């Protein structure tokens, strides 16, 4: 196992870890969004889905796994950042011109920190948010549909979510193709397509989430 320690503490090993955990988190986002879209199908389906998910015996291992991946991603991000800061202690008097033009990569850490804060607020507001009972053919389950519909009635929350999703998009725009590059997936023909796809995915994912937020905001649920 000595090799593993050496590998993950090497510059490229860290990049690999960032890329793989990032790709896993991206996978989670996709399933999360798919689940969110069930909101459009009404309370019954949405709540059934949420119930199935939370009552599954796999939920705790899955949550622990997700948190672990998220934490590893964060730890490696800060680790890389600290390496990078110490690689140039004396800064330039004039900021690097080319770097200026490349915003999303420079913003990875800032957008990442925002996302951490967002996740804490989001989990607190929804997962550990208000419990409203829902009657599913005699069985009482949580009415998550109602929780969500209620949650997105305050303008502050809506704005916070929209901004956060835009920031997530910015993060993903760089992250998606960058993760491929980091594990060595680069191709003369496909990389340019991948970069285009990155933008599409960033916009698609962010607007998908925002769509659900707006749907909830406009829903007839109790204010």
């Amino acid at each position, binding site marked *: 196992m000595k090799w593993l320690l050496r590998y993950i503490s090497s510059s490229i090993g860290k990049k*690999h870890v960032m890329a793989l955990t990032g790709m896993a988190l991206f996978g989670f986002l996709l399933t999360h969004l798919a689940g969110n879209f069930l909101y459009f199908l009404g309370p019954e389906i949405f709540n059934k889905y949420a119930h199935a998910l939370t009552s599954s015996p796999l939920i705790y291992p899955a949550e622990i796994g997700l948190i672990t991946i998220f934490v590893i991603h964060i730890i490696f991000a800060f680790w890389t950042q600290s390496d990078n800061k110490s*690689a140039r202690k004396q800064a330039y008097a*004039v900021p*690097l011109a080319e*770097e200026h033009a490349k915003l999303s*990569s420079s913003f990875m850490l800032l957008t990442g920190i925002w996302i951490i804060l967002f996740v804490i607020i989001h989990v607190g507001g929804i997962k550990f948010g208000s419990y409203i009972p829902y009657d599913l053919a005699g069985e009482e389950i949580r009415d998550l549909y109602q929780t969500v519909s209620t949650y997105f009635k305050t303008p502050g929350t809506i704005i916070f979510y929209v901004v956060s999703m835009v920031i997530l998009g910015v993060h993903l725009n760089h992250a998606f193709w960058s993760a491929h590059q980091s594990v060595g997936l*680069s191709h003369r023909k496909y990389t340019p397509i991948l970069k285009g796809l990155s933008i599409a995915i960033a916009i698609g994912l962010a607007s998908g989430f925002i769509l659900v937020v707006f749907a909830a905001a406009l829903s007839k649920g109790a204010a």
Partner: protein
Amino acid sequence: MSSKAMNLTLKVWRQTGPNETGKLATYELQGVSPDMSFLEMIDMLNARLIQEREDPIAFDHDCREGICGMCSMVINGTPHGPEKATTTCQLHMRKFSDGDTIVIEPFRADAFPVIKDLSVDRSAFDRVIQAGGYVSVKTGGSPDANATPIPKKVADEAFEAAACIGCGACVAGCKNASAMLFVSAKVSQLALLPQGQSEAATRVINMVSKMDEEGFGNCTNTEVCEAVCPKEISVRNIARMNREYLKATVLSED
């Protein structure tokens, strides 16, 4: 051909030694010909400084035709200045205008300590190459040069990686002071060619480990290195090195 002479304001990093603190000094320079190269403009300033019994500005340069990789300088925030695919020595003053202020700094990275003024120590690059940037063949006894055909495409790709002049602009321009483009160019060249295969795994491990040890930063895929590289070395080489590294560590049985 010559046109009107220019007057410039130069802000140049002056630092007397590696452990001294430096600062930007301002010089007004009159009568700069647009036909001068950037380094000839510095020569002109230095000639004046000598006349004024001041210490001339130290800077590295040698071939002045864009191939030795010795000239450096970050000009207005860009290594080797504003012209794409051009080293400082090949940059000409006609790219600037009368009345311009030009800020000139050394290549900055902890792995490239300043020796004096604009001159930095890039021997870390040599040490990275010494860690494995070669094929371990001895002189003599090599097979006939045509014994192993190499597809033209592969040879061309290897050549493009081998075009690196080791100037360090990639490090200087990267916000993380990462040397990935430099290291990956050599790793790629030898990973592509059949001659480099037998040592491919140890090469990439040793070179990356040396690169980390020298204190270069990590790559965050900003691609600025490629944008400022005077030889336009592609970041595809970085991906290839990432792949080679994966093969040599996680996927290898050693």
